């Protein structure tokens, strides 16, 4: 080798013109392809057309029946395991994925019937202390990215962005228009509640509660016979643990009137106290704030739009909680693909978070717009929202075009806040296997 390296004479030949031309063509092709990857295509309405973009590995994965695989995965993991096997199996899983078995609510592992059941485990009350910052982590996981949103583009990873409108959906003035996405507005009307929400008082069983009363500044009622219960906020996490999502259902159910029984009245008062507590934490007069837009695309002067992306790895606790005191006004369910959302894919697949199935929860907090978007993945395609029993994700069938969503409005969920109020760290829902 040494002799060949040192003694072989170097001879230079001119490249044939054809080879040079081919080289130039190849360079131009690569440049064009790179430009096409970055180009944003828009439809006739100016909305971005979401397409699968990325290297060949991404296209190979995109050709797989990911949604069917996800449902099969969910089915397999819902199969009941033999009781004797459960402790061994779950301990092995915990060891492999780093789960802390000491913090789970039900420590007897034989009581988890399947891996799916164990995956959606609850934690003991107080297992997660809640910081007093204005915004806290809604889930256990890893911070993938965070920052400010410039020109309505959210950065997925460095250099790759996606449209905020594509992520949250675009508000269309005329949902019947054939050009608009097939949004289905599912209202939960309750005239009485809606009427209350427009005023600064609530009428409960014939007793009028002013917002001042509900917010705790006064304890008297107009009739003088009933007063709201204490508006002291319960420990958020404890509240979530104890209630298992189901806050008193009296004013929450579709079409149900305020004519509640005495037993229900206690629940109702608890609910109103909770709502008032959230309103106080948001630092606002709910009836005055309710008309604010939640499009999320315009901000008040002196404000900016920020974003954070949190990735939940397979072994993590997979329920998510409210990151702040806020009111969810609507949810938009985008049926989509179920790509893996691991950092590997996030670096390669453009528009990953707007291609995948997701539930955009839109509302407001003390500083204006607030949105939270749980995004599904191949192994965890099912998204549960505790206060939205009608939501069904990862259902059989071909997904509609990206950007299409169905919408539910929570205007009747709270007579005070015109939406679903949530306290910091209150449990909101979670991801299930398959």
């Amino acid at each position, binding site marked *: 080798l040494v002799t060949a390296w040192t003694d072989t004479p170097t001879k230079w030949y001119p490249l044939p013109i054809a080879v040079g031309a081919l080289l130039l063509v190849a360079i131009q092709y690569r440049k064009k392809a790179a430009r096409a990857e970055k180009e944003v295509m828009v439809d006739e309405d100016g909305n971005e057309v979401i397409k699968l973009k990325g290297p060949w590995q991404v296209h190979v994965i995109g050709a797989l029946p990911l949604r069917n695989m996800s449902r099969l995965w969910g089915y397999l993991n819902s199969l009941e395991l033999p009781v004797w096997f459960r402790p061994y199996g779950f301990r092995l899983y915990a060891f492999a994925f780093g789960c802390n078995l000491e913090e789970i609510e039900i420590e007897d592992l034989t009581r988890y019937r399947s891996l799916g059941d164990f995956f959606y485990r609850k934690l003991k009350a107080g297992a997660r202390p809640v*910081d007093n910052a204005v915004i*806290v982590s809604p889930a256990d996981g890893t911070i993938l990215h965070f920052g400010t949103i410039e020109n309505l583009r959210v950065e997925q990873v460095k250099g790759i962005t996606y449209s905020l409108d594509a992520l949250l959906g675009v508000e269309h003035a005329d949902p019947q228009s054939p050009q608009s996405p097939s949004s289905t507005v599912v209202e939960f009307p309750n005239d009485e509640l809606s009427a209350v929400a427009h005023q600064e008082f609530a009428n409960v069983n014939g007793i009028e509660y002013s917002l001042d009363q509900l917010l705790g500044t006064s304890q008297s009622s107009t009739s003088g016979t009933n007063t709201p219960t204490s508006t002291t906020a319960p420990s958020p996490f404890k509240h979530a643990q104890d209630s298992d999502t189901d806050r008193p259902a009296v004013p929450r159910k579709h079409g149900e009137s305020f004519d509640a029984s005495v037993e229900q009245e206690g629940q109702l008062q608890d609910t109103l106290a909770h709502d008032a507590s959230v309103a106080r934490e948001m630092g606002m007069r709910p009836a005055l704030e309710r008309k604010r837009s939640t499009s999320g695309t315009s901000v008040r002067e002196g404000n900016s739009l920020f974003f954070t992306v949190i990735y939940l790895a397979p072994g993590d606790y997979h329920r998510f909680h409210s990151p702040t005191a806020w009111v969810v006004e609507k949810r938009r369910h985008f049926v989509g693909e179920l790509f893996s959302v691991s950092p590997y894919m996030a670096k390669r697949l453009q528009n990953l978070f707007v291609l995948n199935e997701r539930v955009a929860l839109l509302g407001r907090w003390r500083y204006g717009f607030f949105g939270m978007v749980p995004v599904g993945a191949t192994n965890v395609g099912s998204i549960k929202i505790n206060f939205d029993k009608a939501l069904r994700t990862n259902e059989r069938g071909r997904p509609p075009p990206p950007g299409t969503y169905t919408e539910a409005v929570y205007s009747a969920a709270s007579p005070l806040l015109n939406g679903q109020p949530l306290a910091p760290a209150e449990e909101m829902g979670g991801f299930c296997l398959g």
Partner: protein
Amino acid sequence: STIVLVFEAPKSFEFAIQAGQKVKVGNRLGDV
């Protein structure tokens, strides 16, 4: 699975996290 938060806040808002950092429910993400 992933959770994306998008929110409006005063420009003085500062994140208290780093990319790649592990977080748990209730941990501080940022403050004004």
